[in-house]
């Protein structure tokens, strides 16, 4: 709930572009903000899950008898029980491939097999430990490249959801792990490679990491035959409602999804996660049921995609890239989740922010026997940029061309077609590069270090298309006292969207942002939104909110006219309502809908004349110090430069840039889920570390270039994920610059660096 603070001192007018303090900040720091994870309903049962210990196996038996006997246990549920209330218990956004509880087979270590319900969560936990399952173990596949040709198949039959047209051809496919193959074909790469003066080919890999939102996943379902309410930590309540209605065979108006504040999400709480399970359990128990994960259990919910990217470039004698071939393998884990979308939507920019006439992209979504993978702050783009900006640097190095010069020669410029065919507009790639070069002093020589410490610097630039086409709807409600409430489905999970949306309403209606109340998300109340994802909300929902406010403005004007006010009258809003209704009564409701124009990529070639309503552009530069005796890296400087159009709230923009860059720093330097036979061996915060304050680079700059997104709301576009893109290659390029070794796989941890240094020195470290 947005509190109204400092209303008296807040500026009127010029709401956009002002660093309005976060509207909900006070509630959060005083512990008064509501989160699903801490919410209780009366009579509520708690759930603990019994999870698979094998990566791939047929379930021979699940013995729940001892658990059922434990005093205090209300229910012990397996898929047989679920089927009695939901006959077809499979869910998912792209494929209906995920069973509510394991159904005949288990497909990854940690997959939920049975659920225990009890009023006391400790009793449920104890009972879950009494369950015994027997499996017939099957061979498993973990590697994404192997998965493409493996004889081991994670699913017997593929079940596309039908939501996405480009997945329909996979319906009922058998004997494959391939959940989507996106292709882009432009020009003739083979011919271009044959004529190229130089051809370079490299393979890059990324590791399995996860979101680790501060608030773990949590859902409370309260089922009644008359309707169901879910309180859930979700980034997309509209999608949850659609999917729950589908599982029940009900109209959407009997399904209500309520979302309080989120303790972050980063993509982990998109589409449908615990909601289907909570629904089924509440139907069985006929009571409110809460499923809430521990930090440790999040390692078995959703992760980022590990990837392998084979990239090949042909360069002519002048240093112009004339062909690029990209083969990207995405390790999607056991259930597709939104992986196919990641594969396609990021796949289309796999060749980078370069002007290349001949481009070939194959992007494969693959099933493996691991925790499912989904969207994580960048929708796959950080994995791609890691590869193509490392590759670009390696080419420049090999050709002895300055890394910035090489990029300039090949930059995709305004007005030129991107490899998809969409003409580049409002994409300040060159400005971003200019600013980066200036801030990192590229043209000045740098101190290279002495003794065992060597210094170097590197950079990278990137482009991303926003997920399209998507729709947002907003309502602005003006009450008779003149106060305003905004109804929009964008989830404020810490990124400050409530504040930014309120600023846009304030800008249109000429009132302080602090006085606009942003109504909590509730699908009975707040209208449709596709989801808070992929840096789309400020643009899409921003337009819907702007239109809703403008609509309210028009209606207020019409009302003034109706009650006989002269043209341009300044009558206060309360007086206007009194004039119309004879007392403080009535409402003015403004509505706004936004869906951008879009042309779907042509099947087979992936080409489209309008693939995205806006481009996200970013660059990063890093200065590193390498300890050549131990491989330790110190990040002396990390600079992010972004094109985000106009800033609606500069302070929030700055913290989004630094936050995303630091998150990617963890994925770059040390975060890694270690796996042994499909088992995560470091599934806890004691052994899986994320960056802390001591990991923040000595100097950090979080910058934007001064541009306007001409079709954006108030000239703006999204920012949430943009500074993640270039961090990894900038650092790898800096390491190469410092010590002449090239790392091809993340993370760039001290051991990898030392091993590479030792290989270079002809004294490789042993394999012990």
């Amino acid at each position: 709930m947005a509190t109204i603070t400092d209303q008296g001192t807040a500026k009127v007018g010029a709401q956009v572009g002002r660093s309005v303090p976060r509207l909900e900040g006070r509630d959060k720091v005083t512990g008064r903000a509501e989160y699903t994870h801490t919410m209780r309903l009366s009579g509520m049962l708690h759930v603990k899950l019994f999870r698979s210990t094998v990566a791939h196996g047929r379930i021979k038996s699940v013995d729940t008898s001892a658990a059922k006997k434990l005093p205090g246990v209300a229910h012990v549920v397996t898929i047989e029980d679920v089927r009695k209330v939901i006959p077809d218990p499979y869910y998912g956004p792209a494929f209906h491939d995920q069973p509510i509880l394991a159904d005949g087979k288990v497909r990854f270590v940690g997959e939920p097999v049975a659920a225990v319900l009890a009023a006391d969560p400790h009793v449920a936990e104890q009972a879950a430990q009494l369950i015994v399952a027997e499996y017939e173990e099957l061979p498993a596949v973990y590697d994404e490249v192997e998965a493409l040709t493996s004889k081991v198949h994670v699913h017997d039959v593929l079940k596309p959801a039908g939501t996405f047209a480009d997945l329909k051809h996979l319906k009922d496919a058998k004997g494959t792990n391939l959940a989507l193959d996106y292709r882009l074909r432009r020009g003739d790469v083979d011919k271009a490679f044959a004529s190229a003066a130089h051809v370079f080919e490299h393979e890059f890999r990324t590791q399995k990491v996860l979101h680790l939102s501060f608030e773990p996943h949590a859902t409370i379902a309260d089922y009644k035959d008359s309707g169901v309410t879910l309180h859930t930590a979700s980034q997309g309540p509209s999608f949850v409602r659609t999917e729950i209605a589908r599982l029940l065979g009900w109209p959407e108006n009997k399904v209500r999804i309520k979302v309080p504040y989120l303790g972050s999400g980063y993509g982990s709480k998109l589409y449908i996660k615990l909601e289907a399970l909570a629904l089924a359990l509440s139907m069985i128990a006929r009571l409110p049921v809460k499923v809430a994960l521990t930090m440790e259990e999040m390692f078995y919910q959703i992760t980022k995609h590990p990837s392998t990217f084979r990239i090949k470039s042909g360069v002519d004698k002048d240093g112009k890239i004339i062909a690029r071939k990209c083969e990207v393998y995405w390790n999607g884990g056991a259930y597709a989740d939104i992986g196919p979308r990641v594969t396609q939507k990021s796949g289309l920019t796999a060749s980078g922010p370069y002007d290349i006439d001949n481009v070939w992209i194959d992007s494969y979504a693959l099933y493996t026997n691991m925790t499912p993978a989904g969207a994580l702050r960048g929708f796959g783009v950080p994995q791609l940029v890691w590869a193509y900006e490392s590759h670009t640097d390696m080419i420049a190095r090999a050709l002895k061309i300055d890394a910035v010069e090489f990029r300039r020669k090949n930059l995709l410029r305004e007005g030129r077609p991107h490899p998809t065919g969409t003409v580049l507009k409002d994409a300040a790639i060159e400005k971003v590069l200019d600013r980066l070069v200036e801030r990192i002093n590229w043209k000045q020589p740098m101190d290279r270090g002495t003794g065992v410490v060597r210094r170097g610097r590197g950079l990278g630039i990137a482009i991303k298309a926003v997920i399209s086409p998507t729709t947002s709807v907003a309502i602005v409600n003006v009450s008779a006292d003149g106060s305003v409430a905004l109804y929009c489905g964008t989830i404020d999970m810490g990124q400050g969207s409530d504040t930014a949306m309120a600023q846009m309403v304030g800008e249109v209606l000429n009132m302080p942002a602090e006085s606009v109340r942003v109504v909590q998300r509730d699908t009975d109340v707040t209208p449709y939104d596709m989801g808070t994802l992929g840096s789309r909300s400020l643009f899409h929902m921003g337009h819907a909110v702007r239109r809703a406010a403008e609509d309210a403005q028009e209606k207020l004007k019409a009302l003034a006219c109706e009650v006989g006010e002269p043209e341009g009258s300044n009558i206060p809003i309360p007086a206007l309502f009194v004039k119309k209704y004879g007392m403080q009564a009535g409402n003015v409701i403004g509505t706004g809908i936004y869906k951008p124009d879009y042309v779907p990529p042509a099947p087979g070639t992936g080409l489209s004349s309008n693939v995205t309503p806006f481009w996200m552009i970013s660059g990063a530069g890093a200065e590193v110090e390498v300890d050549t005796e131990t491989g330790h890296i110190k990040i002396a400087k990390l600079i992010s430069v972004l094109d985000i159009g106009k800033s609606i709230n500069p302070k929030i923009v700055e913290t989004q840039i630094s936050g995303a860059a630091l998150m990617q720093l963890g994925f770059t330097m040390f975060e890694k889920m270690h796996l042994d036979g499909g088992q995560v061996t470091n599934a806890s915060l004691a052994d899986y570390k994320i960056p802390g304050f001591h990991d923040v680079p000595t100097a950090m700059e979080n910058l934007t270039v001064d541009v306007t997104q001409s079709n954006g709301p108030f000239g703006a576009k999204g920012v949430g994920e943009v500074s993640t893109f270039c961090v990894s290659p900038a650092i790898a390029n800096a390491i190469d610059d410092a010590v002449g070794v090239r790392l091809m796989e993340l993370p760039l941890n001290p051991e990898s660096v030392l091993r590479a240094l030792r290989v270079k020195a002809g004294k490789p470290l042993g394999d012990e």
Partner: protein
Amino acid sequence: MIPFELAEPKSLTEAIKLLAPDDAMVRPIAGGTALMLMMKAGVFHPTRLVSLGKIEKKYSGIAAGKDGLRIGAMTTLSALEQSLDMKKLAPVITRTLRTLSNVRVRNVATVGGALAHADPHMDLPPVLIALGASMSIAGPSGERELAVEDLFTGYYETVLQKNELIAEVRVPSQDGTRAAYMKVTTGSADDWPALGVAVALQSDGNAVKSARVVVSAATSKAMRLPGAEAALAGQRIDDKILARAGEAAANEADFIADVRGSVSYKRELLRVYIGRAVRAALESGAH
């Protein structure tokens, strides 16, 4: 959590009586920072916890004497960190405590717990071993004296009987000792170390008379490295001597591989950090 009994005896003797020599489900609890995590993770289900929170006050104080410091086992790590006596006797301990976990943990975790827990990644044990610290161990039949270096038998294992308690830790006077502790992380800066190295030198300027060298984290327990100690003793420190000591350490330590590094890598780290720790000790000035 399954219900269990929490006993809060008023004396150390009473606490020992409440412990059970043969029952692993009965344990003492001090600050609880380590034990509660094990209970939360479901790896320890007690039937009875014997809290040391209410035993005699003398077990949570620090007393300075001619022969060094006596630290009650219930002294919190914060109290130790802030003790001026400690800083005077062995500033290396004060420095080590600043990067040991965080202030919330240090405010409740105890010196006794920091030793008895026997996680090889912990910071205090290698430093105490290097400084030649010992403990007074209380059991049903009275107290015995034990050097900290003889406490650990393996990964999370000690020589303590189930009904024995660490009562007090003694750090002898450190006249002329120069000491350093290096905590080497390979993940985030506040990760558990991949390697800990503690050295305490008796030296005259650059000339080392004797050395105590301890490795932790990379091995299954904190332990002295006699080969490295011998390589340093009686030597004037230069790069060659340090390389020799590093080599000796790398050869004698028994490394374990984990998510923080392979055996080969940890061996390289130790080789390098022996020298760095010795140099840091020499630069730190005498205690």
